[in-house]
């Protein structure tokens, strides 16, 4: 039986951490049979009865009349949706400091960020016992907050989980996944949200999900991923490698992936191009915020509401994506970015010929303070994603799991598996959590 927090307790907790943008009015009877479990959905997943703002003021007030497939499958399995979790506006961010609403705070240290963009989902999982959170990753939005908040974050293969009911950021990159406190929860809930859905054709080409029988005996570490790490992350990751060898008898080998240096740029070309077209639909007519006077010319009407309601990072990425699709730049970089994606996939495949998984740290540093984030230039924030972007660009399944702690703050490592081989990630999670003790913040629900 799941242990349910009370509505009052959750509201009180949320006033402190801002993990949720909206909390359900009531939760069911704890004694209800069959046993039920509680889960949350990121704010860019539609769920009947809740707002779906995707963290943006331009969607404020939008209440979709339907459930995303991932949400409806969790509900059908007995899940109770506690609420919608906070996020960077449309997923645009590394720290969840770009939400149009409150900024979620790290449960391990409230002066620090949760990571983005599924920051609220990671905070909720870290705070609530037996909680499972639906997150969404485009360039690392599950791995990064999982790493900063000390939980497990599983991003499945592109197409494994239906995107129906997801407010898109980048259609060729978006993936719905899970944040959890245990390998057992990932193993239990991944099959529930996976599988073909006629409402999302990209989910209909997948092979069956195979979890049992997966083996992990050799792991490859790309040399290129070990540069520009903070000393504490480097030390924590090396300690984890020692434990993998000595406690789990896993062989660790070196590999090279020179294309990783192109991945970040290729990702931002593709992601912002797709985002700028997706966000064109928000014009003050159909969803959320309403435009001004309908006596205005449509250009002025659209421009006014978009300028007033989109946040700064959303505007920056719309501009970048619009520019990237313009004549000249498109030919120079957009097509090149598609080639780089294929190159990254090929290099992963080469590594998988010798190893079961590719392993790196998840983020180059521990969760930064809000003050430190305030001093970062946009490019510096983008560059912080250099370890999470490659598997996202390649559509490969990956898992962030806590591997060390520094001054009480969690450090994550990220394992990448071949397309459709989520079973290997869960096998690693089961093995690792058998020898590594996960910590959670004290005094929480």
């Amino acid at each position, binding site marked *: 039986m799941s242990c349910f927090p009370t509505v009052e307790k959750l509201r009180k907790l949320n006033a402190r951490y801002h993990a949720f943008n909206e909390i359900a009015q009531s939760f069911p009877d704890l004694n209800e049979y069959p046993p039920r479990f509680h889960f949350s959905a990121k704010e860019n997943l539609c769920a009947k009865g809740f707002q779906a703002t995707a963290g943006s003021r331009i969607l404020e007030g939008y209440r979709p009349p339907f459930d995303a497939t991932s949400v409806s499958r969790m509900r059908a399995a007995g899940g109770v949706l506690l609420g919608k979790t906070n996020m960077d506006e449309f997923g645009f961010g590394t720290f969840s400091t770009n939400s149009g609403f409150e900024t979620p705070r790290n449960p391990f240290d409230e002066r620090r960020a949760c990571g983005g963009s599924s920051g609220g989902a990671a905070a909720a999982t870290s705070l609530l016992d037996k909680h499972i959170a639906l997150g969404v990753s485009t360039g690392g939005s599950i791995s990064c907050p999982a790493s900063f908040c000390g939980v497990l974050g599983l991003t499945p293969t592109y*197409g494994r989980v239906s995107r129906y009911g997801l407010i898109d950021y980048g259609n060729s990159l978006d993936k719905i996944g899970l944040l959890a406190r245990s390998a057992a929860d990932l193993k239990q809930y991944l099959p529930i949200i996976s599988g073909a859905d006629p409402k999302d054709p990209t989910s209909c080409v997948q092979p069956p999900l195979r979890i049992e029988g997966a083996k992990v005996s050799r792991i490859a570490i790309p040399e290129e991923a070990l540069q520009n790490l903070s000393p504490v992350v480097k030390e924590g990751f090396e300690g984890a490698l020692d434990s993998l060898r000595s406690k789990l008898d896993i062989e660790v080998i070196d590999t090279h992936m020179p294309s990783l240096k192109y991945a970040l740029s290729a990702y931002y070309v593709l992601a912002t191009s797709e985002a700028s077209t997706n966000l064109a639909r928000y014009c003050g007519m159909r969803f959320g915020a309403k435009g001004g006077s309908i006596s205005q010319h449509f250009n002025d009407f659209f421009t006014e509401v978009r300028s007033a309601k989109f946040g700064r990072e959303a505007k920056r990425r719309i501009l*970048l994506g619009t520019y990237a699709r313009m004549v000249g730049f498109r030919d120079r970089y957009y097509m090149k970015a598609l080639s780089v994606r*294929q190159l990254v996939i090929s290099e992963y495949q080469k590594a998988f010929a010798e190893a079961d998984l590719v392993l790196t740290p998840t983020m180059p540093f521990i969760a930064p303070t809000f003050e430190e984030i305030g001093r970062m230039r946009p490019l510096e924030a983008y560059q912080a994603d250099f370890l999470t972007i490659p598997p996202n660009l390649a559509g490969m399944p990956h898992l962030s799991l806590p591997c060390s702690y520094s001054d009480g703050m969690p450090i994550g490592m990220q394992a990448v598996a071949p397309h459709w081989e989520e079973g290997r990630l869960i096998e690693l999670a089961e093995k690792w959590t058998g020898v590594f003790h996960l910590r959670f913040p004290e005094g929480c629900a």
Partner: protein
Amino acid sequence: MDIATVRNVARVARLKLTSEEEQAFARDLEEVLAYMEVLDEAPSGGEHDFNPVPVRDVLRDDEEGRDVDAETLRDSMDTYQDMVRGPKLS
């Protein structure tokens, strides 16, 4: 990126920027675009797709049905006598 280019891109994207935003975005985008020049060194050519895994058309039969009624859809829009109202086209 110069201010005129930022202003032109913003116009295409239906955004009106303040002069402070124009200057900040010009500076930010200049830096990001310079960083993207690393792609000039990347090997080009070879096969590529628009998705990271092969995707093919998957068709389903047309089935008559109504998941959401028109009234519910109109709830989130500006309406007048069962019609959706919008700004002028010209």
